[in-house]
């Protein structure tokens, strides 16, 4: 898991080096015995604007906000309007075939289940 965090920072550096500007979303990461859960704040992004790609052992989350086209002039602007991007290195225990993603009110929920083989199992002792 430390690898996951370290990688996270070096890829952020790489993303900054690229010409396209992205914003790194705030995330929460949890691990349970069944797998990992990542929650990421990406306001303005819906299902259509979300890309989740898996390459080797890295999962990349990119979110493009819905273009808004509000009529009128801007009086005050704080929102950056940029796309979101963040890369995570996966624990080899994650079963990449069963990863699921869900968007709800601008929050991404990424569910990364562990493969059955690595889950702690109770072994029944026979006679």
């Amino acid at each position, binding site marked *: 898991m430390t690898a996951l965090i370290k990688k996270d920072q070096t890829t952020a550096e790489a993303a900054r080096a690229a010409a396209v500007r992205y914003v790194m979303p705030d995330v929460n990461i949890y691990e349970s015995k069944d797998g990992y859960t990542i929650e990421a704040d990406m306001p303005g992004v819906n299902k259509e604007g979300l890309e989740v790609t898996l390459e080797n052992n890295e999962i990349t989350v990119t979110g493009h906000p819905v273009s808004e086209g509000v009529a009128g002039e801007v009086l005050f602007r704080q929102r950056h309007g940029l796309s979101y991007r963040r890369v995570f290195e996966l624990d080899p225990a994650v079963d990449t075939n069963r990863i699921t993603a869900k968007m709800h009110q601008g*929050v991404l929920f990424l569910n990364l289940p562990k493969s059955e083989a690595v889950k702690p199992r109770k072994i029944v002792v026979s006679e």
Partner: protein
Amino acid sequence: MNIVKWQTPTLANWPSLGRLSDLRDEIDRFFDSPFPGLTRTSDLLAGWTPALDVYEDKDSYTVKAELPGMKKEDIEVSLHEGLLSISGERKSEAKKEDAEVYRSERFVGRFQRTVTLPAPVTADKVKAAYKDGILTITLPKSEEAKPKQINVSVN
């Protein structure tokens, strides 16, 4: 416009260090200010100041605020004497009992933002919608605040 300072989020290489320097600023400010209680609440203590945009067209003002992951009923919008106030509370997602936390960057708790409207609005026609984590408030200008075309006849 009465708005609390907010920093554009950037790709922070070391988010934790960013927070440390915020803390140092905070301590500096505490010792610099003779009446710390009377100066504005700092970003660090204020917690979450959701980013917002304000637009104007000839008929109305539109305010858009980024409030990802809220429940509709946890958002409060009020209008009082030309001050639009957006407040509420973001609650943490229900998580499993045995889960270990690796990162906890998302804000949890109460927030409030206040916007002074430049002109009077029709309070009973204000509409608010919440979609994709963005709160959009449309405030139609009151009749006297709208620009009027006056035809002057010259004899």
